[in-house]
């Protein structure tokens, strides 16, 4: 989507567009936030459905509330090209954060039960130990990715680390978008397998059929 210089123009057909030309002391930032809030209201049903599909269960409404509050506090980092996709991405990340937080809490409780020691009480873990863990993680990822072709590895790095969009990578490599997707799929399959190994397949063991 094309980015325009004026935030108001990106958010068409929203209540905030009424303020075009007559801002009544409202800043662009307010307008961006209220624009997103309007999209949130309009997309409420679709977002709730997505949250439930992402495993929100009965917390789906609470998470919608959280999303709403987040938007309220948000600082506009420039115009948003696709407000709807932006909200879904926020919801996606929010769900992911919740899952990770629950997992961390469970691990901590388990470790506490076993040893009486709280390894994830972040302040108590020596920084040297944390640095070592980070280095081990890096080696682990490098080793796993080393099993893939050089091209898959470089495409994954371009995407994951350099933050280059898939369409741009496709242009650079002179391949189709779906070919880029295939490379990234292989890489994601590999790093996901690492996670499965490490965490005993997350809570999936107990819930998957």
């Amino acid at each position: 989507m094309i980015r325009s210089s004026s935030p108001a123009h990106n958010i068409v057909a929203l209540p905030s567009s009424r303020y075009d030309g007559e801002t009544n002391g409202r800043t662009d930032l307010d307008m961006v936030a209220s624009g997103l809030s309007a999209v949130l209201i309009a997309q409420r049903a679709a977002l709730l459905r997505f949250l439930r599909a992402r495993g929100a269960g009965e917390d789906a409404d609470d998470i919608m509330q959280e999303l709403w509050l987040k938007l309220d506090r948000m600082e506009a980092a420039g115009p948003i090209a696709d407000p709807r996709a932006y909200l879904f991405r926020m919801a996606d990340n929010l769900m992911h954060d919740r899952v990770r937080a629950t997992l961390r809490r469970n691990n901590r409780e388990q470790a506490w039960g076993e040893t009486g020691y709280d390894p994830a009480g972040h302040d108590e873990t020596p920084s040297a130990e944390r640095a070592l863990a980070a280095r081990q993680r890096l080696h682990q990822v490098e080793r796993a990715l080393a099993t893939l072709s050089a091209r898959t590895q470089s495409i994954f790095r371009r995407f994951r680390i350099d933050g280059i969009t898939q369409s741009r990578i496709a242009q650079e490599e002179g391949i189709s978008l779906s070919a880029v997707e295939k490379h990234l799929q292989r890489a994601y399959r590999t790093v996901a397998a690492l996670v499965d190994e490490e965490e005993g397949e997350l809570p999936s063991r107990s819930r998957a059929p």
Partner: protein
Amino acid sequence: MTTDIRDQAALWMARARDPRFSDWDALTEWLEADPAHNLAYEAAFAGHDLAGALASEQPAAPFADTRVASTWRRSRWIGGGLAGAVAAALVALVGLLTLAARQLPVRASALIWGGWTLVTGLTFSFMSGTVHPY
């Protein structure tokens, strides 16, 4: 969880992490089809986080190498100094015991001091790992 689901999840993860991705309704439908889909998607998401570690890669390592080497050299120097001091103390003890063979008080104090040094040294040598870390 079948291999097929993991492959599908990896593809959805690849798509959805692209900033231009907009087909969230199709992703919703895929997730709704089977609760195992979301679990596989979460695992791929955690993999995405894990791969972020690649950002901390050092482009070149010579600096790290020299630092390790110099630390090693320094600790070897300190270790050498300590070993020398221990050796000197032992020589002094043996010397004291032989030279002062006839003088009972000197010999007795040398034995007491030597015994105490030996016990302390052995204790500290073997307590590595059991000592309180802070």
